[in-house]
């Protein structure tokens, strides 16, 4: 089963990397008011069904993939 985790800096958390990207985009002439930089983690995992996969990935996020103090995450499970 394939799953994707999108980890983002939580709302309200200062994201200096995102700010630098926004400023650079502005320098290139793009009218961008905000940029936030997170990370995408693609997983290939053993799971019986999508629910199983989702609950496993939730545990992965809690234990390693995201730091709940500063990051939020979204899980997408591809059960096709």
């Amino acid at each position, binding site marked *: 089963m394939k799953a994707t985790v999108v980890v983002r800096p939580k709302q309200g*958390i*200062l994201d*200096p*990397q995102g700010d*630098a990207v926004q400023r650079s985009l502005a320098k290139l002439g793009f009218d961008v008011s905000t940029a936030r930089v997170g990370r995408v983690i693609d997983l290939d995992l053993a799971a019986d069904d999508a629910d199983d996969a989702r609950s496993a990935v939730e545990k992965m996020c809690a234990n*390693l*993939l995201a*730091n709940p*103090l*500063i990051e939020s995450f979204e899980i997408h499970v591809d059960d096709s």
Partner: protein
Amino acid sequence: MSERPVVAVVVFPGSNDDRDAAWALGAVGAEPALVWHEEPELPLETGAVVLPGGFSYGDYLRTGAIASLSPAMDAVRRFAKDGGPVLGICNGFQILCESRLLPGVLRPNRQLEFVCRDARVNVENADTIFTRRCAPGQELVIPIKHGEGAWFADQGTFVQLAARGQIVLRYLEDVNGSLGNVAGVINETGNVMGLMPHPEHAVDPLLGSADGGLLLAALVDAAAAHALALA
């Protein structure tokens, strides 16, 4: 038991201040013992633990996140739970936060630049096993060198930590966007501390400052006391 208390320095792949820490600890009276991160146990006679600076696991994912899962960190957790003194320096501080042995997290410096210079820090709490060789409010000069040193916690946690004296060191100026200019924090039970400045680089006036030696010598005192309590 040797006369010098044993201080274990855990070496992770990517640690680069492990030998500096060992040298400095030796200079202030400890018997340093380098412990590879895959070791499941600390040396039997360990009186204190130092998690050194560096870039464990190339800072992959988040600084300190992967190192926090090393076998040696399970041993460090048990050691800390039993009241053993643990000091995390720079990357070691990041590892302690990711291990949830210390509150908060270290985030990229606000200016997105690696800072490498002497920093002036204030001893906010001199009544800890790590700072008791310092006077309350004493100003220390200790070098900093980090890209991810902006300590952060939610406001409620921060207020609570400050009220309990768990904010041990603060920068005297804003060096990296750290919340409340926090440079070092201690856990609630007072035996685990982390700081971004590098005391191991400030143990001899020839190196510009010997102020770091005050913190490390206090750690060695604590190591001797802990080893004695275990004996």
